[in-house]
């Protein structure tokens, strides 16, 4: 408990993460010294997480529109039209810092937050994905973080009842002090029943729903806790605690009162809790909001207005209820055993007024809280370009089969089964493509439509060339969705970077955003939602720039879905797209030669689009039997994955004589897919590729139980599988089961 409100001093202002000039801006805006509660409100609204003050300027350049986009960035989640009166609602959000401090709860509440963003809009969550980055496996904290994050994601999603169907996991020493947890959720709604935060109507009740408010998460995104020592022993840790059971009840209750026509506006209480949700509802609707904190359901006694306004307790919602619907809404919430309290009203004053125990604790201009937040055009420098690597200059002692065996058993490529088996990926009975494929595929209701989704980014590329890396992240998500036969529709981006006050880090952000924008535009793959996580830095060293892209696409007929496993022996294996042997920033270079340098592979967006369109058409016309995109690891890793998924081997021709075999097998040229074709379809597929102007080459033929590369030692598929499956369980000390 805070006995009395502290005096506003420069130190207190600094502890709230506000710079002196930002504080001056506050004084000018309100014409007086803020109260302690008001200072807290400003710090919550004006921190990087809520205001996007470093990134906003550059986010404006992203393409956000398409005929099928119903709602772009700016709401809780993006919304796209998928036909038949249905909409897909999705977003990805980071919970990086909390997941480092307390991995289980940090990751769990990250999942909870993103699910809430989706069902706040009236959508029932139908799939969850997550993109995870951990430090070097040899770092003493990595195992603990991995175990905690995975159990946290599993415990929340499994209990809530959403299938966790896909994602990615990567390791790099640059994440040693800052692991990343990017959680994505996808929901399904009726396209004409989307709910928004914008309040309408004066004098309507503002209703608080869900779990009670406690002292957890008060310092939230803004503060280190230092100066609040007097009350510290009574405060919960700054990481919130998740309750998936409460969230499941909240979901059912929210969807029920939406269906009953009770809801005018709705906003979940996420970062900055009550403050952010109330201000957004009012500001978006050009209305004032008056809150009476005496009515707030609290978990503990003696909470101050400051604490209530800044608490980040989980599983809470704020709503404006339609006139005369209070009783009906309350009855539904009581049925689900949840708190329901009228905590305020909409007003026509455009003021955000907070009352507590007969005192006015805050009285601020509501629109300016958001609109007048600082906006920075931070100085930035372009990342210096790196040279293209000439394969002939490399001193390679490995053999091709030896390099494949090492790569396939290395942390980044090893099977992540140990992780995804802890997630319920089957619940709701719509999971048509389980973890391990190019994209997860989830059927829409009873079909035949399905959604395909994928999370992608190659941080090494982004660090070496932010523009090309940003392009590549978008292209790879687009490619993965294409590889199952779906048409990519839109993406959500989760931008994880270091300290934007450093010009070189800001340069990474700017470069990646330009690349993302260019690719999104060229591929008709607009950005509909996203999240920015900056200051991912420890001891002055930032993470690799990691703009995770979460893509969503539509498959018209689930029966036509493609999968990556070889289907039978005796089929022709083709690669579509050009192979030049690009080794710069490749996994081969990093894992086998222990160097991360050179220019990353460029993405030709026109070729990317045409190649993808051809592959999708081939899948739709039933001309290919297996499809896999070629990404990091190159051709041979992709072929091995197709063999591992099926148990069927292949006989592969030697590389063209003019090419370095390592560059051929492990180069990471973009815009490529491997397909298998029955003999009867061979000529037709070749003709289609020629007509589309897409280069293609025959790699070999499926069959047998090993990968036989001409002139190389055979690789037994089952032995390769053992390597592939072994690393993670052994690393986690779990044995091979």
């Amino acid at each position: 408990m805070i006995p009395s409100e502290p005096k506003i001093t420069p130190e207190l202002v600094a502890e709230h993460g506000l710079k002196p000039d930002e504080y001056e801006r506050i004084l000018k805006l309100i014409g007086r010294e803020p109260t302690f509660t008001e200072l807290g409100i400003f710090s919550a609204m004006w921190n990087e997480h809520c205001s996007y003050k470093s990134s906003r300027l550059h986010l404006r350049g992203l393409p956000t529109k398409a005929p099928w986009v119903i709602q772009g960035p700016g709401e809780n989640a993006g919304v796209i039209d998928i036909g038949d009166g249905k909409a897909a609602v999705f977003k990805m959000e980071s919970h990086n810092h909390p997941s480092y401090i307390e991995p289980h709860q940090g990751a769990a509440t990250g999942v909870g937050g993103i699910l809430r963003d989706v069902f706040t809009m009236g959508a029932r969550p139908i799939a969850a994905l997550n993109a995870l980055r951990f430090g070097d496996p040899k770092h003493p904290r990595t195992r603990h973080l991995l175990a905690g994050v995975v159990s946290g994601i599993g415990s929340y999603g499994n209990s809530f009842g959403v299938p966790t169907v896909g994602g990615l996991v990567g390791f790099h020493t640059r994440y040693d002090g800052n692991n990343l947890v990017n959680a994505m959720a996808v929901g399904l709604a009726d396209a004409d029943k989307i709910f928004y935060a914008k309040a309408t109507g004066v004098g309507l009740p503002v209703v608080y729903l869900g779990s009670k408010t406690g002292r957890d998460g008060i310092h939230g995104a803004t503060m280190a806790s230092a100066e609040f020592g007097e009350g510290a022993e009574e405060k919960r840790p700054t990481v919130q605690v998740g309750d998936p059971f409460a969230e499941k009840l909240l979901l059912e209750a929210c969807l029920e009162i939406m269906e009953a026509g009770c809801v005018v506006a709705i906003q979940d209480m996420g970062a900055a809790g009550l403050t952010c949700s109330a201000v957004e509802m009012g500001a978006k609707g050009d209305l004032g909001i008056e809150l009476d904190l005496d009515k707030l359901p609290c978990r503990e006694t003696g909470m101050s207005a400051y604490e209530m306004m800044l608490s980040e307790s989980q599983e809470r919602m704020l709503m404006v209820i339609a006139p005369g619907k209070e009783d009906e809404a309350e009855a539904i919430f009581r049925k689900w055993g949840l708190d329901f309290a009228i905590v305020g009203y909409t007003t026509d004053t455009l003021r955000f007024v907070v009352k507590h125990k007969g005192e006015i604790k805050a009285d601020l201009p509501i629109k300016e809280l958001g609109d007048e937040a600082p906006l920075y055009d931070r100085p930035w420098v372009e990342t210096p370009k790196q040279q293209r690597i000439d394969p002939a200059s490399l001193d390679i002692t490995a053999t091709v089969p030896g390099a494949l065996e090492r790569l396939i058993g290395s942390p980044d490529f090893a099977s992540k089964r140990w992780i995804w088996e802890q997630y319920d990926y089957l619940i709701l009975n719509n999971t048509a493509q389980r973890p391990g494929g190019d994209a997860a595929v989830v059927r829409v209701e009873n079909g035949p439509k399905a959604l395909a989704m994928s999370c992608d980014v190659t941080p090494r590329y982004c660090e070496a060339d932010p523009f090309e890396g940003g392009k590549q992240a978008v292209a790879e998500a687009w490619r993965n969705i294409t590889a199952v036969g779906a048409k990519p529709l839109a993406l959500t981006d989760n931008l994880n970077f270091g300290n934007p006050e450093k010009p070189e880090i800001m340069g990474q952000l700017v470069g990646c955003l330009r690349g993302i924008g260019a690719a999104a535009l060229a591929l008709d793959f607009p950005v509909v939602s996203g999240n920015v996580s900056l200051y991912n830095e420890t001891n002055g060293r930032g993470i690799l720039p990691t703009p995770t892209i979460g893509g969503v696409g539509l498959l018209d007929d689930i029966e036509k879905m493609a999968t990556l496993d070889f289907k039978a022996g005796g089929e022709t294996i083709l690669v579509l797209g050009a192979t030049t042997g690009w080794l710069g920033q490749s996994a081969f270079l990093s894992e086998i030669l222990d160097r991360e340098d050179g220019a990353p592979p460029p993405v030709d967006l026109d070729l990317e689009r045409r190649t993808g369109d051809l592959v999708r058409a081939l899948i739709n016309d039933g001309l290919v039997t297996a499809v896999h995109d070629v990404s990091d690891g190159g051709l041979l890793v992709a072929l091995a994955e197709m063999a591992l998924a099926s148990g069927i081997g292949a006989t592969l021709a030697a590389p063209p004589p003019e090419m370095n075999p390592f560059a051929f097998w492990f180069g990471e040229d973009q815009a490529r897919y491997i397909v298998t074709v029955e003999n009867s379809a061979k000529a037709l597929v070749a003709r289609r590729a020629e007509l589309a102007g897409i280069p293609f080459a025959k790699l070999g033929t499926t069959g047998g139980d090993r990968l036989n590369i001409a002139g190389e030692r055979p690789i037994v598929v089952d032995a390769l599988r053992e390597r592939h499956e072994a690393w993670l369980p052994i690393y986690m000390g779990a044995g091979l089961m």
Partner: protein
Amino acid sequence: MKAAVLVFPGSNREGDVARALELVSGVKPAMVWHADTALPAGTDLVVLPGGFSYGDYLRCGAIAARAAIMEAVRAHAARGGLVLGICNGFQILCESGLLPGVLVRNARLRFICREALLKVERNDTPFTRRYARGAIVRFPVAHGEGNYTADATTLKKLEDEGRVLFRYVMPDGHRDDAQVLNGAANSIAGIVSEKLNVLGLMPHPENHVDPQVGPTDGRALFESLVGVLEKA
């Protein structure tokens, strides 16, 4: 057939099992809220679905076993009515005394979602008559507490009376208690009551009924029930 699916706060596979029942029987089951005190008139089959009833923060299924609707379920079972408990439903049946034993945390202390191979030990029950005796079927599991445990006397009684209906097996069809995925005693995946009218099982037959999203080995369980009830 009239089926009723119970819904506890925190149930989350009620929709999956309702869909499976409708797919096989053509009739939507009634969804019955935990606070109700009676089953719909003429209910033939009661299903307790998977999930985390009341959050399962206490021993799983312990609170649900004391829900208002459970009195009606006990009475239904006592009359010989059919009861099917899947996953959390199996845990609730054990906690409510309708089946013996208990489900504890998986031996490796982790949640596990995986396809499991099961042996159908007998096909003279209302739940399994559409399977061949000894058939090996593939159902998925998705649980953190599916490790079936009972005292030696109870286990012996279950085995002697042939009440183990589903058993986890290795790919060669034999059970291996040391390798079983969740540590279950005698590799038990599902058991029936003395009168063969109450089945509890951890794996999810309702998630393997639809060829669009996977194998269909679970379908025969629901077809068995529909067949039995149509004859009756």
